[in-house]
């Protein structure tokens, strides 16, 4: 029973870290640019399929393929911003949302045409299991946990210790004040998309690794979990989203523990996430770490 709990906590940390990295990128864009990116899930899918192309078709090592995939999504995100989102600055929330919805359909169906509708997988041994103490760890989980810890550390350093990161947090906190103090918002926008896109690409590859198989709808189906993590952490806060993702991943996995009166049927993990979201919106829309303020 305790072993099951430890295993669930581990699984929760793995899936939670993916949600954390996905959500941190989405929340960063939301905070700095006031854009809710409804294509963020599809940015993840673009990353997963780019890495699939480099690793499985061109035969590059998975680590190299992942980095190339991150670069591709980052460049793509900047390109989309320049072409479609930059002209929309100042045009209000909802119309920007709809543009990103249009972009999500563009990406998803381009992936369908390019890679077909069948399920894909990376060339890692899906049957292999490492036994670490009481835990059973799949290679995909091991890679994911390593990559995610690295990404979380890098993002923490970037936001906390560099000028760029400080400007981002300043803009997210109060954009007028930041502009007055001389933050170059145009350059900041591109850097924000660079980071958000890169993280989305990485999260997509890891999601593909942990799921085992994936198709072009993978991002669309994950988007609402990403957004739930964003709300958990408080919309616009990248640090908050990291925490929100981990909390959401852990909650969903641990809820299935037998110790909780037999545990939740794993099929209803996603329903639990939905209840968490509605509950948050009702009682704590500023997120679990957020300050009490009017929204």
């Amino acid at each position: 029973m305790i072993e099951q709990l430890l295993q669930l906590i581990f699984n929760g940390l793995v899936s939670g870290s993916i949600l954390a990295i996905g959500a941190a990128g989405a929340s960063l864009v939301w905070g700095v640019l006031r854009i809710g990116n409804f294509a963020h899930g599809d940015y993840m899918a673009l990353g997963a399929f780019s890495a699939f192309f480099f690793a499985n078709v061109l035969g590059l090592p998975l680590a190299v393929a992942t980095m190339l995939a991150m670069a591709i999504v980052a460049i793509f995100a900047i390109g989309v911003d320049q072409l479609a989102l930059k002209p929309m600055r100042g045009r209000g929330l909802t119309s920007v949302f709809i543009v990103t919805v249009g972009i999500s359909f563009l990406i998803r169906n381009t992936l369908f045409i390019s890679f077909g509708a069948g399920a894909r997988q990376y060339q890692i041994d899906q049957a292999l299991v490492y036994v670490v103490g009481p835990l059973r760890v799949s290679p995909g989980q091991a890679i994911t946990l390593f990559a995610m810890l690295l990404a979380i550390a890098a993002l923490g350093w970037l936001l906390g210790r560099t000028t760029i990161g400080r400007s981002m947090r300043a803009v997210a906190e109060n954009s007028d004040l930041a502009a007055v103090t001389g933050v170059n918002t145009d350059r900041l926008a591109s850097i924000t998309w660079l980071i958000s896109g890169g993280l989305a690409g990485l999260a997509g590859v890891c999601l593909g690794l942990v799921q085992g198989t994936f198709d072009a709808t993978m991002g669309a189906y994950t988007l609402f979990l990403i957004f739930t993590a964003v709300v958990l952490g408080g919309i616009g806060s990248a640090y908050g989203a990291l925490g929100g993702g981990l909390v959401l991943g852990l909650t969903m996995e641990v809820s299935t523990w037998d110790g909780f009166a037999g545990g939740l049927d794993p099929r209803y993990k996603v329903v639990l996430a939905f209840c968490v979201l509605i509950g948050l919106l009702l009682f704590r829309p500023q997120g679990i770490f957020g300050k009490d303020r009017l929204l």
Partner: protein
Amino acid sequence: MVEFWLFVLVTAGIYTIFSLGLLIQFGIAGLPNFGTGAFMAVSSYTMAILVVQLELPMLVAAPLGIAAAVLFGLLLAIPTIRLRADYLAIATVAAGEIIRYLALNLQDLTGGAAGTINMLGPGFAADYNWEWQRFLASFQQMLSGLLSFRVSTDLAFGLIVWPVALLLVWGVWYMVRSPWGRTLRAIREDEEAATALGKNVFLYKLQAFSVGAALAGLAGLFLAWQVSMFTPDDFRPVLTFYAFVIVLLGGKTNVWAVPVGALIFTIIFAGTRFLDFWPLSLFNSGDKAFLRLILVGLALVVLIVLRPQGLLGNKKEDALEN
């Protein structure tokens, strides 16, 4: 061939109904809804479950389906409507995904991925639609007698859907011009000013969202009646996407442009499957379906970025500023 285009016209009528719902929510009241498909799914699944599992007559089950869609709308709207538009948008995206997920996983109730035909488990073909089909058949017979030529099923269906759709267009047009509609537009433009004038902003928004949910629910019923079984995949987010394209084609507050937008959209969308010149001839029919969606996505982005007031809208009111 005539049958195919009649089917497309029926579909355009159904699209008119749910796009009207989005027009009220998004265009008039400024409430983004990215889960129109979910509301349709809630109502048609509720209807089918009540008919098949509880053996209720259609005349009871259908209104209860619409009621379920409205209740679901309230569940999303009550926590989020007071907050910034982001939160409602997130809630509706989540709703779309959760309804699809539930329909897939509550197999005993919904039939799961195999669709409503599987509702009573394997070995039984569940049918929710016999009452509607009997009604449609008698209507078809009556029309054939009246017009003295054989009226096809699709034509009969169209002669039900389109009068209903146009009646609703008129009703919505009337509502939008009424004091109720003017208040909603005032709220959309300046919430604080409307509050200062003593309007209960929360209640008005809730009403607008519920009307939209009810219209989506009705459209969901028609979609279910048009076929004899449906699966969770029939209510993909893509329906929401169509609704946005249709509403934006006409300008987001232009009520009479909705049926026009729905006709233009469905006819072009269905018509592209007959285009077979280079480079389209390079794609097989499955890929063409994806290609169509890519082009629609592109059209939506270009439309909003370059022509925010829509093709037919007036710049003063319809420009997408909020």
